[in-house]
């Protein structure tokens, strides 16, 4: 089969690989119909996540048709068109039973901090991902959901990660009616977080980024105020002024380790990789939230140390909430929102690219070429 093949930082290509097999009685093999490139894939692409091995296939935002099921799979059958949450979750461990599906303890041998994630390095379990023609789906009775009749597959693939992550970012903010919410980052997750902040009753939503076309997009899509941090001087000072000098009630970090805005952190975290990425977005979030406010983090950081003003977290009495989205917990509500026209996730998809051009797709997304917001890879059979 055709599959993306990681060859080193900023080097990927399409290659022939063996079709995956059932390795566990609760596995399914899924023929991929859609596979997105996620902003967090760029951390892998740039070599920022430890134990990202050459030869791996990335891809954790997948829809596909069930081709084969293991002997213990009961809820799926061959031919079902499913969306596959990015978390691999057993449904049995204490964390899954507590609905912390991103923290499953039976899907990732290599690290205890996070559960298994498709195609996300060996730090997330060592699974080959879905930027391929086929993917192995463990615990097939737990995660995958049959795409509801009439739902556009482009909407479905966005429900595997982007929508739940953006929604949970807003949910973790504990937004109360009238709250001012600031979202750092106008990538797909930041855009969705800004959109979802309104659903929780935000009174004002502000997005900070530096890419003009993304700011224009989120301004229309969320809708919200959206500012280029390069044009507002000190973003923290700007946000203090515009919130009557006290700060936002909720700040959301939807950027993670690839944040721009601090040359020193760029050098240390992105250039020399001495710390786990650059953290200006989180730094600004902590410093521009109100005393007693909430900082919600969905941006992805490496597992080593990061430079954050933890002293201000203490002094301001800030609550920090963070996690990988618990996709399975959120899906029923989010499917409703899509079906009722409250959320329109497919509008974020700007590029539909044949899987064979995966190198170009990564480059376009990474370098933000051609006003790319969200690229989706289409395997040959899905284009027929």
């Amino acid at each position, binding site marked *: 089969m055709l599959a993306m093949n990681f*060859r*080193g930082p900023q*080097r*990927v*290509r399409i290659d022939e690989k063996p079709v995956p097999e059932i*390795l*566990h*009685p*609760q596995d399914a093999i899924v023929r991929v119909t859609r596979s997105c490139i996620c902003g967090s894939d760029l951390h892998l692409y740039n070599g920022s996540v*430890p134990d990202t091995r*050459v030869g*791996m296939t990335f891809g954790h935002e997948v829809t596909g048709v069930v081709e084969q099921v293991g002997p213990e799979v009961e809820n799926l059958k061959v031919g079902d068109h499913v969306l596959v949450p990015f978390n*691999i979750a057993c449904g*049995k*461990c*204490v964390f899954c*039973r*507590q*609905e*912390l599906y991103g923290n499953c*303890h039976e*899907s990732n*041998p*290599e690290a*205890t901090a996070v559960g298994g994630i498709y195609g996300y390095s*060996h*730090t997330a*379990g*060592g*699974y*080959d991902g879905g930027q391929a023609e086929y993917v192995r789906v*463990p615990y097939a009775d737990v995660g995958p959901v049959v795409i509801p009749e009439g739902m556009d597959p482009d909407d479905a693939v966005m429900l595997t990660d982007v929508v739940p992550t953006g929604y949970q970012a807003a*949910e*973790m903010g*504990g*937004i*109360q009616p009238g709250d001012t919410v600031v979202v750092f980052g106008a990538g797909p997750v930041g855009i969705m977080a800004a959109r979802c902040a*309104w*659903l*929780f*009753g*935000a009174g004002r939503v502000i997005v900070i980024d530096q890419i003009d076309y993304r700011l224009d997009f989120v301004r229309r899509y969320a809708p*919200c*105020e959206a*500012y280029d941090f390069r044009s507002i001087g000190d973003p923290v000072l700007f946000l203090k002024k515009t919130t009557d000098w006290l700060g936002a009630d909720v700040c959301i970090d939807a950027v993670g380790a690839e944040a721009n805005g601090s040359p020193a952190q760029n050098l240390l975290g992105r250039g020399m*990789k001495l710390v786990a990425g650059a953290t200006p977005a989180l730094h600004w979030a902590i410093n521009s939230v109100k005393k007693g406010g*909430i900082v919600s983090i969905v941006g992805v950081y490496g*597992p080593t140390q990061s430079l954050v003003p933890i002293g201000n977290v203490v002094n301001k009495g800030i609550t920090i*909430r963070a996690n990988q989205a*618990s996709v399975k917990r959120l899906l029923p509500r989010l499917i409703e*929102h899509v079906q009722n026209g*409250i959320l329109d996730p497919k509008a974020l998809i700007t590029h539909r690219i044949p899987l064979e*051009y995966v*190198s*170009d*797709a990564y*480059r*376009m997304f*990474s370098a933000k*070429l051609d006003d790319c917001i969200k690229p989706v890879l289409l395997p040959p059979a899905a284009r027929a």
Partner: protein
Amino acid sequence: MEQAIIDPAQVKGWGIDADPKNDPTYPMRTRTGEEHVGYRWERPPLQPRTVEVLHSNERPNVSAVFGTSTPPSGLSGMLRRAAFQYSESSFGHWLPLMLADRISVMEGFLGDVGRGHFPNIFVERGGKAEWKYNRTAVMVPALLGAALASAALIYLYQRRPTEERSRARRLPARPDAA
């Protein structure tokens, strides 16, 4: 310049999920009464180990399922095995893994060449997309590289006869030259 503030009442779905009880909020545990039980749940069936799987020393075993992509091998594999002697809290774990990642790039390159495939790094880096949408980003380093290479060649070309001349000057006169 500050932009107009959006009127929430005009936003589709405003407040549809508002809930005063949403604070404290997720990621909270749904209490099941098992909070203090420890690692004692009924485990799923265990996936047979057909490849070498490293596991964090912060757990007693390999998880019930695991990925089988790219098992450790070569020098990078030795480093990875060493890294897993240390906990996830230790630099002794993460730094060798980062080093192993860099070494595995070289191993991958040599593996490609060994199979008779010389990787097209321009294509692997998405050079075609860059050329189509951001030609300057391709041209500037290419022109810079060409300029540096030309300068080096010119320098070497000019230097060679000078050295030869110098060497000739240093040679003693032949006895029969007089």
